[in-house]
């Protein structure tokens, strides 16, 4: 049983926050959305999402509520808290800076 993810933990957190910035979502939905918008580049074992969700919930960056799902079943929905929104902004901008810097280095080399 190998570790299910090659993603850096911080990156996964950032992606989850970004996904939830649009609308509250349950775990399965987040997994689908991640796969779709990354064009299947990000192959995450779906299970590994949940420890990250629970960790973010504990840190107060996201909040969870149980409500009815699309086909009327009970599901746990996550949404961004104000703290989470703030974190997303700062993380995103520093990610932007970092990736620009790396891109420049790669181009110039």
């Amino acid at each position, binding site marked *: *049983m190998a570790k*299910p993810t090659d993603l850096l933990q911080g990156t996964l957190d950032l992606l989850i926050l970004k996904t939830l910035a649009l609308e509250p979502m*349950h*775990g*399965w939905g987040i*997994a689908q959305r991640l796969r779709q918008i990354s064009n299947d580049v990000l192959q995450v*074992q*779906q*299970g*590994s999402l*949940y*420890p*990250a969700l*629970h*960790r973010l*919930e*504990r840190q107060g960056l996201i909040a969870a509520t*149980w409500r009815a*799902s699309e086909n009327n*079943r*009970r*599901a*746990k929905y996550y949404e961004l808290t104000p703290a989470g929104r703030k974190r997303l902004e700062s993380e995103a901008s520093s990610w932007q800076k970092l990736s620009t810097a790396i891109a420049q280095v790669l181009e110039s080399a």
Partner: protein
Amino acid sequence: MTRLRALFAKNQVERELDDELRFHLEKQIEVNVAAGMRPEEARTAALRSFGGVEQVKEECREAWGLRFIEILIQDVRYGLRMLAKNPGFTAVAVLTLALGIGANTAIFSVVNGVLLRPLPYPEPDRLVRIYERSAQFNVMSVAYPNFLDWERTNRSFAGLAAYRGESFNFTGTGQPEQIPGAVVAANFFSVLDVKPLLGRTFTSDEDRQGANPVAMVSEGLWKRRFGSSTAVLGKSLELDGQAYSIVGIVPRDCRLLDPAEAITPLWQWRRRMQLESREFHPGIQVVGRLKPGVSLAQAQADMDSVAHSLAQAYPKTNEGQGTAIVPLKNAIVGDVRAMLLLLQAAVGFVVLIVCANVANLFLARSVARRREVAVRVAVGASRARLIRQFLTESVIVGLAGGALGLLLASWGIPPLLAAVPGGLPRREAVGLDGSVLLFTLAVSLLTGILFGLAPAFESSRSDLQEALKEGGRSAVGGHRRTQSVFVVSEVALALVLLAGAGLMIRTVQRLWDVNPGLNPQHVLTMQVALSPTLPNDPSAIRIAWHQLLDRVRNIPGVESAAVTILVPLSGDDNEMSFWTSGQPPSSMAQMPVALGYITTPGYLRTMGIPLLRGRSFTEQDSESSLKVVMIDEVLATHFFPGQDPVGQQLQLAGFGPLEIIGVAGHVKHWGLDADDSAKIRDQLYFPFFQIPDQFMAQSKMGLRLVLRTGSNPISMVSAVSRQVMGLGRDQPVYNVGSMEQLIAGSLARRRFLRMLLVIFAGLALTLAAIGILGVISYSVSQRTHEIGIRMALGAERRDVLKLVLGRGLVLALSGVAIGLVAALGLTHFLASMLYGIRPADPLTLIGVVILLLGVALLASYIPARRATKVDPMVALRYE
């Protein structure tokens, strides 16, 4: 909130986790079915894309944060259950650890009490002891007039106080007894900042000639003789026939005066005469409290200039004399520091061996637990989780061992202290205090982790496939290697301890063989005083001593007896300045100094000291006859090389010219080992009955009586005491002992060190033997099959024996090789305690190696014999 709910509403949270994950999986299955999969297929695919459900759950739980404590509780519970399942294993592990940790705790409690705890006075770091120093002595007691000048002219001290130990004949209430006492300057207690338990301390008016006699008593005497009554103040205390009025009680914590029980002002001292000359250094000690912010170096510089001006003002007595300032704690602790640190290191080795041994126990057991480990891995336990579980178990065992060790230490400390030679300084501070408990806790945790680490890593390295196949013989090579490493380390550590013990055994043996220069067999020594009611008349005192000697000599079994002021090897000394030609040297510093024995006739015969030339003292050498002296062979060769000293003259400061009548053999006064390198080795003998009158009065207070007896001297003690006590029954006898006991006492520290090192080395040897036994037994049990095949193919029992013994020997030899290198590097720390041998003494090391190899062979023989009993058929069928 989730964190708290995780703890209190665990089921609810767990259920929600289940619901959440189930929702995910069902959703995925729906999607898969919609995409055209068969239900069964859809389910498998969903699970595959999800990953390990149990693992995800576990990681989620960890994300909740409270998992750590929960896991710990769970691990502890599980660990306790596993340990309880194997009571034999657990008991052996805990007991072994208890021995190691207990020994460490006991030794550390001594180190802590003696070396680490601060002195029980306010701001103890400012307290120092100040000695005088000269060419002959690194430290010596202080001449009182010098002290007064120090007090007047120094700029570094908030206060200086002089004091001296004394001994009083305590009469008046009940049985007369000789009690230890002290005389102190009036400011003594204020320098130390000690408040009396009751009453008051001395005033400066009382520390003056002709003042009313007052005394303080120790808390101990107050309890023992006055029943802790507060009415004791103002009562009378009869010391040496004089009534003192009690003004206060000295609290027990004021240990600087120990063992004093009665304390009087310095100027009321009966030997006050000795306070008046700069020539005398009558055992006065000086304690000082540094002004705040003054460093030791600054104080020393200040005192150097004080001593310098004294040397200029009084060249005759003070030339070449300086001072030495020592922090009070160092002065009290003295040179036991090195010994205690040595013991702590040795006992540290023991605990390392214990760790190795218990680690091997755990390793051996982990083989039996391989299936258990495999099952736990299969249900989702990570390796880190397993290691944590195993470490929890070993820490539990470590803590249990520590708790039991603490108990052992609390039993062991009193006998340990009792065995310390000549009273350990600060022994009162030794005990199980907070620091000791903390130390034990730390050692227990550390040992738990130390011995648990390797087995935890080994055990958790489980190959699922292998382990689940019952009875696989493979995958244990790693175990065996680790076990071997432990056993080799044990042997190496044991060798170092054995080498230390061996060196001490040989040292003490060598010292016993040293000729002390006298015949200690059947010699009894004791201190005696004359009746305090005897008038201070010199001739009356002479008669009293004569009578006492006559009474003692008439006891059946007493062959000879003498009185002396000094006994060799007793720790006492008496320096006398002398010169051998014409004019005396201009200053004391240039005058030769000899040990002066002032004795009655019969001393040499009683002590068994050979007379080499001339004659010894007789009854005819009286106060009215020609003044005579005897010298020893060392003084003779120093000052009369190539001549016959008998008939020549020797001048003794204050005694006038004396005729040398005889030469005696040299006596190892300073100790069997220390005498050869002592600064003062010249010895001279002066007839007691010829001493000047002013000294004769002092002899009333106490001299040493020595007797040669026909049989065991200790059996004569009561008969002699009866005769000495006299008609008035007010002449106490104290410090009774045989000369052999004195010699043994002078070796006491080394014998103590030898005893403990032998105990530790014995423990180490036993543990190493058990370690070898364990590893060899284990390897035999692992190789039963192989041995069976060998025997089936025609191997003799002898070959099998050789095979197994060879393996034990290889382990032992590897340990011996490493141990020898370590021993060569480490034994030089013992150098200061050795005598007559080098730290790398080849004979000792060879002996130790032989002993160790012998024990290793013996330990391997037991499993080897079992191996030879293997029935090939059974061994093969077992497969």
